[in-house]
Every structure is written in structure tokens, then in C-alpha cells.
């Protein structure tokens, strides 16, 4: 068998290797996902955002920080497709570079938060007893923090800026993932197939890492994509309040903040970044919904 990757190879009833079986399974999930139009729309928009963010230096017609004080608050027109802001900077270019900032922040948060929450949740759920109690009480402490107050605390302690914003968001976002992973682990811990693995004499770390954690990943991915929209909104709020990305950084929330006094007459300046936030949040939400339909074991 040449192993040519085509549809038949993926959907075969009798795979001849673990790789083939795994890819077949992923392909079937993809087919299920593709059937959901809204989810596909979400995926396409998210991919478009990522492309814009990555290719911003080549897509943007102007430098996002170059000011042109003779052309302040310019109306959208060819040349400046989305107009100019209060310092004459091209809104479209700022939007594209702002995607970098926003998506970068979101990615940084997710990369720290998801594995941490998964680990803590699985360990707490599997071992139970005092380990569970201790870890869950720590989780409760972080869950109790109101995000904005924590962000203010960081601003007071460290400089306001993107790193403090990321830290503030991450520290208040990880508890739900731990809770989720723990709930899933509790459900799987007493199943016969985990009992069978225990009967091989496997160590607890092997059981958690190789048998339980992979089962929790599905719902965690769903939760992450759904959370992305709220992370984007929170980052924007921090920017709006002056606690996150600082001007002249082209972060979408900051852009709204600095332009809000022009809302009545030159409405496009604060509105365009607002629409961008809305579209990004909505896209992640739709994507997350679609992933849940496909990955959630209770629905399969």
C-alpha cells in the first residue's frame, strides 16, 4: 500500500496503522464540523483574522504610528479606506496591526492557562482526598478575584502595559479550566476502562497523562475557544481603561478609548475597532459552538 492520503484511505473501515486510524478519526470529525455552516463561518473569520495579524506589515498601506496632523479625522475614502484617527494615522493600518496585539495577547493567555488548568484539574480529580481539597481551595481563591480589581492592583504594582494585562487575565482565567478538567476526571475515574489500566499496574502519572488527560482535552478546547471571545473583550476593556496596551499601541480597545469623544461627529474612528472586536468575539463563539457539537462526547 502506497499510503496515498485520499478520502478512501481516511474513511476506510480497516485501517492498517495507528496513524491511519487517528487521521481517519480526525477526518470524520472534520466532516462533521464542516456540515455546520455557522461554525465554518466562524472558522473562516478566525483564520482571516490570523492571516491579517500575521501579514499586517505587508497588508497595511501605512505605518500605524505615522501621524499626519493635516489630515486628522479624515472621512473614509480611497487612500484611507477606513479614514484617519485624531492624529491622522490610518485606521485600517492600525486595525491590522491591532489584530496582532489582540490575538497575541489571547494566545499568550491561552498557552499559559489551558495546560495549567488541565494539570491541576486532572491531578485534583484523580487523587481526591486532601490533594483535591487543597488544589480546589487554591482554585477558589483565584476564582474569587474580580478581574478588574486585580488588573488595577497590577497597575499599581507594575507598569500598565501588555505584560501586566496578560498576567492579570491569565491569573483570573485559569480556575474554570481546572474545575472543568476535574469534573471530567471525576467522571472518568470510575469507569471500567480506567480500572483496566490500573490493573496493568501503571503508575498514577501514566494513567493521568496518557489515559485521562486526552479525554478532557476535547471539552477544554471547546471552553478555550468560547473563552477567547471574553478574553478579547477583557483585553479591550483593559485597553479602554488605560490599563492594558498603552497608546500609541494600536490595540483595539485603546483605539476606542482615545477616540471616544469623537463618537458623534467622526463616528467611524471609535466604531471601526468596536466592530472588529465584535466580529472577532462572534467568530470565536461560533467556532467554539461548532467544536462543542463535534467534540463533546455526550453529543456524539
Amino acid at each position: 500500500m502506497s499510503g496515498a492520503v485520499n478520502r478512501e484511505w481516511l474513511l476506510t473501515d480497516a485501517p492498517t496503522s495507528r496513524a491511519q486510524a487517528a487521521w481517519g478519526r480526525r477526518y470524520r470529525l472534520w466532516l462533521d464540523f464542516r456540515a455546520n455552516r455557522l461554525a465554518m463561518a466562524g472558522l473562516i473569520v478566525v483564520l482571516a483574522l490570523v492571516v491579517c495579524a500575521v501579514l499586517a506589515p505587508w497588508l497595511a498601506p501605512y505605518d500605524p504610528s505615522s501621524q499626519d496632523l493635516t489630515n486628522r479625522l479624515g472621512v473614509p475614502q480611497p487612500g484611507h479606506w477606513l479614514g484617519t484617527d485624531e492624529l491622522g494615522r490610518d485606521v485600517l493600518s492600525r486595525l491590522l496591526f491591532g489584530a496582532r496585539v489582540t490575538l497575541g495577547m489571547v494566545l499568550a493567555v491561552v498557552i499559559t492557562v489551558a495546560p495549567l488548568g488541565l494539570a491541576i484539574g486532572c491531578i485534583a480529580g484523580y487523587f481526591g482526598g486532601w490533594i483535591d481539597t487543597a488544589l480546589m481551595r487554591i482554585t477558589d481563591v483565584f476564582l474569587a478575584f474580580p478581574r478588574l480589581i486585580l488588573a488595577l492592583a497590577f497597575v499599581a504594582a507594575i507598569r500598565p502595559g501588555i505584560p501586566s494585562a496578560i498576567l492579570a487575565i491569565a491569573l483570573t482565567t485559569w480556575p474554570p479550566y481546572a474545575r472543568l478538567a476535574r469534573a471530567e476526571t471525576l467522571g472518568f475515574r470510575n469507569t471500567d476502562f480506567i480500572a483496566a489500566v490500573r490493573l496493568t499496574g501503571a503508575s498514577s502519572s501514566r494513567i493521568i497523562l496518557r489515559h485521562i488527560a486526552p479525554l478532557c482535552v476535547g471539552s477544554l478546547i471547546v471552553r478555550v475557544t468560547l473563552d477567547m471571545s471574553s478574553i478579547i473583550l477583557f483585553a479591550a476593556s483593559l485597553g479602554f481603561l488605560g490599563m492594558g496596551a498603552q497608546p500609541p499601541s494600536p490595540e483595539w480597545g485603546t483605539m476606542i478609548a482615545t477616540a471616544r469623544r469623537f463618537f458623534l461627529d467622526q463616528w467611524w474612528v471609535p466604531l471601526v475597532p468596536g466592530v472588529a472586536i465584535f466580529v472577532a468575539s462572534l467568530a470565536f463563539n461560533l467556532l467554539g459552538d461548532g467544536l462543542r457539537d463535534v467534540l463533546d462526547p455526550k453529543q456524539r
Partner: protein
Amino acid sequence: MISVQDLRVTFNGIDAVSGVTFAVAEGASFGIVGESGSGKSTVLRALVGLNNDWTGRMTIAGRALSPKRGRDFFRRVQMVFQDPYGSLHPRQTIDRALSEPLLVHGIPDIDRRIRLALSEVALPATARFRYPHQLSGGQRQRVAIARALMCEPEVLLLDEPTSALDVSVQAEVLNLLADLQDRRKLTYVMVSHNLAVVAHLCPTIGVMQAGEMVEMLSAEDLRSGHIRHKHTADLRRLSTELEEA
């Protein structure tokens, strides 16, 4: 081979198993029957080490069992579970499920052993890289049996192995279990609520009711009605009533 003396298991202050004693010779089959709640599965789980809240004395191959079981124990004693739909990891292929015991014990030559295991339980090679949801109930139970035998144990504990299977599949699996026992000289302890199934496979049977083993008798005595305890007689009557049709 197996000796259980005065086993007692308590859940939340209630005795699930109160003072059970029996012994199984090497290569023999011992059946435990009872209704739900009689404690029969609890005995098995205590024996295999899934439940460590027990008192009493249990020995396997002359070695006394302690609550902590080492890897060596699991190489000699294995279990097949009741529900074929729940005893296989849903995200792992059959190949992965069968290689896990070998990986944990560091046994080499995995590929050949898996192929041998599949043929021994009469599963086609095409099943090897499938996921559990792509197999039928009978096929999954065969995989569960193959998995239990991967490390070549001496004792196999069977917890209602055919209760969730169709009748025709049950017959195949019971025949398979009988063949495997002959070929590998295994010692079986089988739990079931079905008298006919237990009597078919096990020459010696223990009857449990409300946590106690109320009677121990041979399969022949059970068939012919030489019974001492009322509960056994009731169970036998319920079973033979339906056979008269």
C-alpha cells in the same frame, strides 16, 4: 491457587460482603452467583485490588495479598469486566489498548504478541486499528479478554462477562473462555446472576445472598436439585421454570 478467608468489605457502615470464605484449586473454575446487591462483584473487586477496604485473609499462589498490589501481582491476576461498552478506552485503538499492558511491564515484541492475541480470540486482523465504537459488543468483549491475557496471567477473574451480550454471542464467548482455560491452564473465578451460564463453565459454585456465601455446591448438585439452602433452591427454580417452555 486462590484462598479467601473471612473476607469482609464495608461501604459506609454497611457490610457489602460479610465473612466470605472459599478456595479455588489451580486450573479450576469457581462460579459465584447471586442477585444484584449480593456482594458477588465486590468480592471479585477486592480480590483483584480495585477495592482496598477489606479485612480478612486472601492468598493467591500461596502469597498473601495486601491492600497494595505490585506490578508482579497484575501480571499473574487479571480481570474481564461486564460492560464491553465501558471497558475499552474510547479514544484508543484496539492496537493501543492491547499494547498498554506490554508497555507497562516492559515486555518486548509487541507487534507479534498483538497479532497472536487477536487470532487467539478469533478477531480478524482488520479489527486491530479500529476504535471500540467501530466494533460490536461481542468483538469488544473479545478484545477485553485478549487484553487480560496479554501478560499471560495465571488467574482470570470474570465479572459477568456475557451478561451484556446477545445470546448467540454469549455462546461463542463462553466457548472461547472454555478453550482458553484448556489451552493456558487458567484458574477462573466467574461472577454471574445467570445460573445456567455459571453451571456451564464452573464445576463448583458459591451462592451469595446479602453479602454472605450461603451455600457452596457442585454444578451437578445444582442441576439435580441436591440443595441445602432455600435461596439456592429459589434461584434454581426461577431458572428451570423458564427452561420448561
